[in-house]
């Protein structure tokens, strides 16, 4: 379980986080929901320690993290797996080396064969068996995310953080990535926090959702409760998401019709 208490963060004159508090439960997919620029990613970075909050604290399973001794912070960090928005794979390494890297660095006592077994297990788990020798530049966006997940879970992480795991992916691949994260969370009983602005993710995998607006927590609840809320900003966000989804649907249908017409005219010309 991860607890955050009264997190404040300011960059220059801009207040990005304004007293955010909350609890993220173990074995559940906890979603940080909000439009772009509302401080979701900054909050995630504050939790993992990449950004230091001006005020506030983060606790991992009762152990104080923010401003604690370096070795205690390091010990907690070694239990963290993170999937970055850009996947952040090391581009000079193969898929296998990327997944093996945290094992090499964090568990030096592990033998080479044990490491290889673990790498292959993790790659199989994310559906990438046989991709060991590929370079990140040879992978599609969805595959990169899968490798990122494999790398995150390789050292048996207790906490999994995902920063917009669906960004740049088509709806079907997004769904598969969402399902994979959900499965892994439940299978290993880990605490997962996902930053997203995608309502599909909320509907599919959101066990607990925290809605951020202009750096403040406006709402917190489950996916069943989210449609019944009377928070105007959240309703606007849901409405805008639906509108975008419908517009995308119409756009896809128009493209499909145009493509079919084109094929038909090609056929008739050919005859």
């Amino acid at each position, binding site marked *: 379980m991860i607890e955050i208490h009264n997190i404040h963060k300011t960059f220059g004159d801009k207040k990005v986080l304004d007293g955010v508090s909350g609890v993220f439960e173990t074995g559940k997919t906890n979603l940080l929901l909000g439009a772009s620029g509302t401080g979701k990613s900054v909050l995630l970075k504050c939790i993992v320690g*990449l950004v230091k909050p001006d005020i506030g604290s983060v606790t991992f399973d009762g152990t104080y993290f923010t401003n604690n001794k370096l070795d205690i912070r390091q010990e907690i960090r*070694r239990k963290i797996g993170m999937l970055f928005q850009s996947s952040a794979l090391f581009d000079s390494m193969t898929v296998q080396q990327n997944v093996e890297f945290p094992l090499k660095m964090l568990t030096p006592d592990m033998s080479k064969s044990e490491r290889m077994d673990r790498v292959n297990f993790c790659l199989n788990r994310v559906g990438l068996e046989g991709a060991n020798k590929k370079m990140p530049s040879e992978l599609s966006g969805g595959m990169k995310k899968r490798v990122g997940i494999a790398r995150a879970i390789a050292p048996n992480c207790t906490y999994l953080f995902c920063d917009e795991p669906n960004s740049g992916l088509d709806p079907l691949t997004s769904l598969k990535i969402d399902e994979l994260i959900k499965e892994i969370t439940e299978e290993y009983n880990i605490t997962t926090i996902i930053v997203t602005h995608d309502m599909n993710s909320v509907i599919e995998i959101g066990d607990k959702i925290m809605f951020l607006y202009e750096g403040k927590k406006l709402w917190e609840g489950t996916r069943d409760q989210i449609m019944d809320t009377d928070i105007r900003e959240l309703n606007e966000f849901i409405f805008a998401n639906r509108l975008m989804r419908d517009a995308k649907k119409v756009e896809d249908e128009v493209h499909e019709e145009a493509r079919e017409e084109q094929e038909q005219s090609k056929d008739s010309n050919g005859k």
Partner: protein
Amino acid sequence: MLEHFGKYLLFMSTLVVRGESPRILFNRTIDEAILIGINSIMIVAIVSTFIGAVTCVQVSYNLTSALIPRSTIGFMVREMTILELAPTITSIVLAGKVGSSIAGGLGTMQITEQVDALEVMGINSASYLVLPKILASLIVFPMLVTLAMFLSIAGGYVAGTLTGALTAQEYITGIRDAFIPYNIVFALIKSVVFAFLISSLSSFRGYNTAGGALEVGAASTNAVTNSVIAVLIADYVCAELLL
């Protein structure tokens, strides 16, 4: 200016706290030394050979007095090469090649969140990424400068004898005349100082990149500019202090 210097000092101090195990550091340093060294041999060889050749031809052009023996050309090529041209010009060339590569590589890692990925794993990214580059430069630069000294003198020999400016015997007599072994030590000390400045300044610029591709390009340019200026200032300081 002072703010940048302060940040640079703080950055350097992060390299030595909570570093990785000696085995990882050793392996990473060897990898970086191969990257920096092997990839730079060709450019250093070409530049230093031609610098030696041009120095020989220009000295010979200026030495017209019959009272000065022709072997003086060889002597002057050796002195200029060892004291100044080999360490300084090689370092300036390496500032362009190695410095921009270090800054570009680290900058790209920074903007694609690869550095954050290391930090989240509990690894000191500065120590893991930068320290091996600096150590590798400290090992490889003196080797490249030694190669440059040898090839410059050889370049002078080829140019001098082929153009008929002096005979092979005169050139060899010149390069053996009044040789001071300390000059070699001086050149190697300079190469170590330049290696540290180039690798650390370029790493500092690259590691602190924020933004996108444009900023990575700017970081590379700044790395080269800062390194070249630092090398020239250090060159003067070394000459004042050590000669």
